[in-house]
């Protein structure tokens, strides 16, 4: 669908078509963001309830073992799928892709709108499971059969069915959105916006979306089959079983097959969340340190490499699952190979800081915080990816600490950084800096207080997903004190998120006016004629791009940034030209 300035008159005028049944990518992005934050708050509360039990076992009578496992499950599933995936792709992707590539909207606006409403339906179905008999499923977010559909697991009647149905609906929504994002990037870039001129944010979201389109089908089929096993009594994943003294009629299915299908989705999912974070944080660091991103080329290839490799590492989640043991060699090797492009990204972020001009704004604080938490989370991945080291650590608190650092906290810090960064474009106002800094410090330090010691509980051998640890002789009493400390830290971090919410709401109406480009950034979204951008984004004429996204501190220029649509001569476009002209890279002389 081609846009032209003549289509400006399609701008909707009624409240309903403008803010509710809107096909404008910016409104849909805000809808996605608000819904994801809302459901994320539910998951945050669930995590704090879990921590109450772990820190002060038995003190809160309403948290019995059933509830505990339900909190564990819903917390994990909401955070991974309904918050992180939805917010990065549906929120940031929706808002930023058209603006950053100079498009007027997504290529399929109606489909885009449907994507949000179907996502909302998925959220509502999931939330409904809190109110059905037996409550939501307590099978753990991995939903491993046979346990997830058998008595003995909370919510094994209605809860699991609603969980699976909600996931299937979510995948429909993600597919509708994902097709849009990919095709918009490929087809709707404005004049001069070559692929290698795109900001890394777009690269990250673009590759993550392609991965989502390839990975979610695997979850879809496993969800359908598990639903059939539950509702129709098929035996895709169910062998002959004697459950609670009853011989069941299942026969011949494979529980391990489910794990393969689940992690064929589940591991790429980690990078579906991580790659947009990588992209966004690259742009935050470059913008706020006033310096071009170090090794743009490598950064793009690292994103593509990670995206591709992440499809051949899934069984590192299954080293002790009972799968063919020879898989261990292959999956340990691929997993450690993926560390190379990931390490390159970390190096390039910190090398961007070298000889830069660091402005420690709130988005930058979160970006630096991300490097630190991602570093520790990535490094602990080398323990768990290396099969023989994984054996004693598998399913202990080391795993909990690892994945929260690498794909919980780190992407969340980027989301916060991104929200503080782009909020002025969305609303035309700045968020309060003092509250933002308070939010950063408590969240960042709290993260270390919560997760750093957990690694050591895992090395000790404390298994995860335990409701209580009484009378285990190998666990010293001091571990309980440590758990109480972690709980207090988690509660403080949890409450501090209210400061963020307050800041978000308050600044929307009362924030200081931001102007069109408060961070003096180069990328196109900051060059819109109006702030917030109007319907169609660009007024009469779409921008024309003359340079890549990272012309910061170009020598000889009056300002320390040159917008991508500026036609002025000079700047770092030499890098870009090599790609356009496909000049031989080796031995090329810099001018």
């Amino acid at each position, binding site marked *: 669908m081609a846009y032209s300035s003549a289509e400006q008159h399609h701008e909707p005028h009624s409240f309903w078509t403008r803010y509710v049944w809107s096909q404008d990518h910016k409104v849909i992005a805000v809808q996605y963001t608000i819904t994801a934050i809302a459901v994320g708050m539910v998951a945050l509360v669930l995590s704090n309830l879990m921590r109450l039990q772990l820190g002060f076992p038995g003190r809160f009578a309403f948290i*019995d*073992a*059933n509830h505990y496992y339900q909190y564990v499950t819903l917390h994990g599933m909401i955070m991974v799928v309904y918050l992180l995936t939805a917010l990065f792709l549906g929120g940031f992707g929706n808002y930023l892709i058209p603006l950053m590539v100079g498009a007027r909207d997504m290529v399929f606006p109606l489909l885009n709108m449907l994507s949000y409403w179907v996502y909302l339906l998925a959220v509502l179905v999931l939330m409904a499971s809190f109110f059905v008999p037996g409550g939501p499923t307590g099978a753990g977010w991995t939903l*491993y059969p*046979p*346990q997830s559909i*058998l*008595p*003995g*697991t909370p919510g094994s009647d209605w809860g699991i069915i609603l969980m699976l149905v909600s996931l299937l609906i979510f995948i429909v929504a993600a597919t509708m959105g994902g097709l849009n994002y990919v095709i918009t990037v490929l087809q709707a870039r404005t004049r001069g916006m070559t692929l290698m001129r795109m900001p890394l944010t777009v690269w990250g979201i673009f590759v993550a979306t392609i991965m989502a389109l390839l990975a979610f089908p695997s979850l879809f089929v496993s969800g359908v089959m598990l639903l059939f096993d539950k509702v129709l009594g098929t035996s895709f994943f169910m062998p*002959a079983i*004697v*459950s*609670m*003294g009853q*011989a069941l009629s299942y026969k011949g299915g*494979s*529980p391990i097959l489910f794990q393969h299908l689940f992690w064929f989705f589940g591991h790429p999912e980690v990078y579906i969340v991580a790659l947009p974070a990588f992209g966004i944080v690259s742009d935050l660091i470059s913008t706020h340190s*006033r310096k071009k991103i170090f*090794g743009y080329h490598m950064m793009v290839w690292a994103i593509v490499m990670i995206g591709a490799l992440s499809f051949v590492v899934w069984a590192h989640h299954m080293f*002790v*699952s*009972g799968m063919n043991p020879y898989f*261990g060699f292959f999956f340990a*090797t691929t997993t*450690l*190979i993926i560390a*190379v492009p990931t*390490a*390159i990204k*970390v190096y390039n972020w*910190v*090398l961007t*800081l*070298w000889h*830069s*001009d*660091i402005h*420690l704004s709130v988005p930058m604080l979160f970006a*630096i915080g991300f490097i*630190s938490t991602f*570093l520790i989370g990535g*490094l602990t991945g*080398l*323990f768990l990816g*290396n099969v*023989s*080291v994984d*054996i004693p650590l*598998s399913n202990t608190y080391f795993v909990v600490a690892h994945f929260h650092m690498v794909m919980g906290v780190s992407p969340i810090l980027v989301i916060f950084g991104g929200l503080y960064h782009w909020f002025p474009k969305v609303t035309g106002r700045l968020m309060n800096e003092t509250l933002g800094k308070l939010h950063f410090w408590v969240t960042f330090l709290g993260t*270390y207080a919560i997760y*750093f010691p957990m690694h050591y509980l895992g*090395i*000790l*051998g404390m*298994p995860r*997903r335990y409701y*209580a*640890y009484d009378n*285990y002789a190998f666990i010293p009493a001091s571990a309980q004190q440590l758990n109480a400390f972690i709980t207090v830290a988690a509660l403080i971090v949890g409450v501090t998120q209210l400061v963020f919410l307050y800041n978000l709401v308050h600044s929307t109406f009362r924030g200081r006016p931001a102007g069109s480009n408060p961070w003096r950034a180069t990328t196109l979204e900051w060059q819109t004629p109006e702030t917030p951008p109007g319907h169609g984004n660009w007024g009469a004429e779409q921008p024309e791009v003359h340079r890549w996204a990272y012309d910061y501190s170009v020598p000889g220029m009056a300002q320390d940034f040159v917008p991508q649509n500026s036609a002025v001569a000079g700047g770092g476009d030499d890098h870009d030209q090599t790609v356009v002209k496909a000049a031989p890279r080796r031995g090329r002389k810099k001018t």
Partner: protein
Amino acid sequence: MALAIVLMALVAAAVLFHFLSPWWLTPLASNWGQIDTTLMITLAITGAFFIAINLFIAYCLIRFRQRDGHRAAHDPENKKLEGWLTGLTAVGIIAMLAPGLFVYAAYIDPPADSLVFEAVGQQWQWRFRFPGRDGRLGVTDSRFVSAENPLGLAPNDPRGQDDVLILNSEVHLPVGKPIKVLLRSQDVLHDFYVPPFRARMNLVPGMVTHFWFTPTRTGRFEILCAQLCGVGHFNMRGYVVVEEPAAFQAWLGRQSTFAHGATRTPVAATGAALPAQGKLLAQSRGCVACHSDDGSARVGPSWKGLYGKTETLADGSTVQVDPAYIAESIRTPNAKIVHGYPAIMPPFSLSDPELAALIAYMKTLSDKTVAQAGTP
């Protein structure tokens, strides 16, 4: 500036925490010292990267903070530096991966002379089986599982007749001999995890998995389930007693075989008071996974205050909790279901002395009495 100081402080705190932490590996009790070594290599290499990169960021934050009149450098690409860093990373990765793969190759290759035994998981208890004099385990199938044949051995398989069955949650093993553990589950996924052994593996219904280790010191070690297996997961306890081979053989000799209608070793042998025996029994048979002793809600009714109480059943009728009712509820759990609880308890075949011990224990948890105490 504050952030730089905080990052340096975090690095210092992390290093301090590492060296002062009372939470560390349990003392090794198996041959898998190599796993610990690989862990330490990984820790050293990743620790160095953690410290170096955080400190580098801190340095940049101070050195290149925003100052008036200062402008960022317009660095060209630095392919050479990128090449070096990539190479350095690759070397670090290989230094961790290579030893790891060698250890793993040993891990999946049990010695031919291993002593074989089987651990069977069921929500939420452990049971065990040793091959008898013929050195072979008999065939099993879930079709054969019943209260009398809880491990599901084929009744007509001659190889299974002399299998030694351990129908409680404590197993003995000889020190210094390679052990190959065969793992079987009757219901859901479980995981046989003894932290000091390091080695472990999932139990998967429908198939037999295995792993091996050599116990290197004697002692009594806890078996944990480390794969979420439902609401009683955290209480699926067992014990491995590692002892001298002679003591192990003597213990094995005292156990019953399948052909001789194996039952559990009577707890009364310990000579402890009856309620204390009952408490041990409740733990070893997995009762505590579902029935608390402190009134807290679990899968089934708490035993606190249960004895002598009048329970309302699912059909609305009432029943007093007396020894006869308790015996029935254990041996045929679904005959009477307490209102509000699911009918998920498997039948347990307890001997009369065991039942008496359990009831004695339940009495201590209640201040009520039963008018005419019948004998079960």
